[in-house]
């Protein structure tokens, strides 16, 4: 699934993550991020586990932990608002930790993915994935990384800012695509 060599190298280059255990490829958490999340309902171990889990679900080697921390903050808020969700997350993390008899966060990257694959249809996994897909990709700072420019209204749209600036194909004929009025 992951070309591990490249993955690790990109992680190292990004400088965002300090703890890469060279032998196992395990993903460790940037020091301070867990604390900065200010969790109210989840404990630090749960927070760190969810952070790494979010990263394994939507891995972007060049994105720093702070963006994934947003996922954990949002999960913590959902847990605070709903006891059932809180319990589901706590049980879910405990389940991850018991899967191989080693805390999930200490597993190698390949083992972490194998454990996640085995639980991907559970409500717990869907809660984390469903939260992550919104929290991670709805962040304007993350958009920059993808080259998505976000709101265009403040800049008058793209009518004068490259809506038709493609330069590797010819311009379609006027009959198909008339000039702007």
């Amino acid at each position, binding site marked *: 699934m992951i070309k591990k060599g490249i993955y690790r190298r990109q992680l190292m280059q990004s400088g965002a993550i300090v703890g890469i255990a060279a032998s196992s490829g395990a993903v460790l958490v940037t020091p301070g991020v867990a604390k900065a999340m200010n969790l109210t309902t989840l404990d630090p171990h749960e927070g760190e586990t969810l952070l790494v889990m979010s990263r394994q679900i939507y891995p*972007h080697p060049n994105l720093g932990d702070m963006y994934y921390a947003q996922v954990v903050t949002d999960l913590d808020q959902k847990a605070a608002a709903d006891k059932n969700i809180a319990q589901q997350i706590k049980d879910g993390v405990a389940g991850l930790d018991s899967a191989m008899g080693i805390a999930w966060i200490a597993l190698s990257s390949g083992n972490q993915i194998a454990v996640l694959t085995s639980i991907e249809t559970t409500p717990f996994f869907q809660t984390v994935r469903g939260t992550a897909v*919104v929290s991670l990709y709805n962040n304007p700072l993350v958009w920059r990384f993808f080259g998505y420019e976000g709101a265009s209204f403040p800049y008058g*749209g*793209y009518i004068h800012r490259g809506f038709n600036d493609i330069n590797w194909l*010819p311009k379609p004929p006027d009959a198909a*695509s*008339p000039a702007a009025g």
Partner: protein
Amino acid sequence: MAQYEFSDDSVVVIIGSGAGGGTLANELCQKGIKVVVLEAGPRHTIRDFVNNEWAAFSMLAWTDKRTASGNWRVAKDFPTLPAWICKTVGGTTVHWAGASLRIQEHEFRARSTYGDIPGTSLQDWPITLADLEPYYAKAEDKMGVTRTNDIPGLPGNNNFTVMYWGATRIGYTGVSTGRMAINSRVRAGRSSCWQMGFCFQGCKSGAKWSTLYTEIPAAEATGRLDLRPQSMVLQIQHDDTGKVNGVLYADATGTQHLQKARVVCVAGNSIETPRLLLNSHSARYPDGLANSSGEVGRNYMRHLTGSVFAIFDQPVHMYRGTTMAGIIMDEARYDPRRGFVGGYHFETISLGVPFLAAFLSPGAWGRDYTSLLEGYSNMAGMWIVGEDMPSATNRITLNPAEKDQWGLPIPDVHYDDHENDIAMRNHAFKQGDAVYQAVESTQTIEVPPYPSTHNLGTCRMSANSRDGVCNKFGQTHDIANLFISDGSQFTTGAAENPTLTIVTLAIRQSDYIADQMGKNQI
């Protein structure tokens, strides 16, 4: 703006303010008729719109719970959100992209043209293209559709340029920026398109037609429209003779009111419209209103959809400019040699990063998936809009297990893909891949349907009262003063985006209602 008494039984009550309801309200007001529009959603202005996909969705979409069942992929991917519809003044014309195509002549004769296809409930429409042509012309003028009424086409964006060259290289000829209800020039007091790229989020320049800022203010200017936002209709009531005589609704505070009516027109889009008729059952009508045929809620159609996205080794920036920037029309013909009846269109589509991540492959995760997303800048995309087959078992029913905030059963949307649908989608995916490979894509991605945006057919019009819910004017066969005024009327889905036809039918219906009221028939 007018304010009518709850007891005023001379008003026409219209339920819903979208393409069907908003248009009908204006047309009736222009003819001097008193209209009350009850709209479940709040009233926003263009200034409220935000260029942000999730924020706009939470502001405008209908998010009350629905359930989905059947073998269609939507039931698996979006089990509680089978449809993407708005709950706001203006209805789904706030979110729509503006593609405005007439249904083709042979598509009105679907049963005659396609023959007896097992597993379908195909029928001919009780009207022809010739019947609708004068009304299509009025609708196109009203909506300012490009390439009609001497309005130039829109300029194509980067996403269009990629599609254009791919399509023409594989031999397609019907490729252009199409017919769009988006101003390419300033018209009717509205701006021309700024190429903002947020057509699905509410157009902040007003270039795109929406009943919110065209039909509704025009109706208000007559002094005859009483528009009540945040008014959710719970039940349509009738008198001893069986005629409808009022509607029960809950206002923003939850207080319930009974608005009397001379005529009731239902335009809640094809899930809420049949749901309301079913929920309005009474001792006289135990199966729901206008349901002596048993057809209310049946024959639900949603267009065969799917998307093809492609990644290139150079930038595209598909999100810049109109969301539906162009169309390929070649596959919309009738040609059963392809292995299916009916036809389909390709229309460019683009999604921002937030929606793309959720929709490109719903549920997918891991590095294979995220590396696709990292191709965002170099991505192009198009959507498939094809005719799906009606079937009596594809239907909206009341879910006995769950109730909404007013204690009414929520709707279940059941849909099974017909083998014709499967064959057509397969063909479209192959052709879509070929289009992009012709311009050297490095990868193509076949994307399953999003929650349904075109919801149709659940109170269909029919020549015979046994076969459908309403006649060729949308008047229900069973109750003369009860009308269906939205896409629920469609006898078949055709390969065209439906809104132009919904508006056309509403204009035509307004003539009929005015005529019948004038003759005291209703």
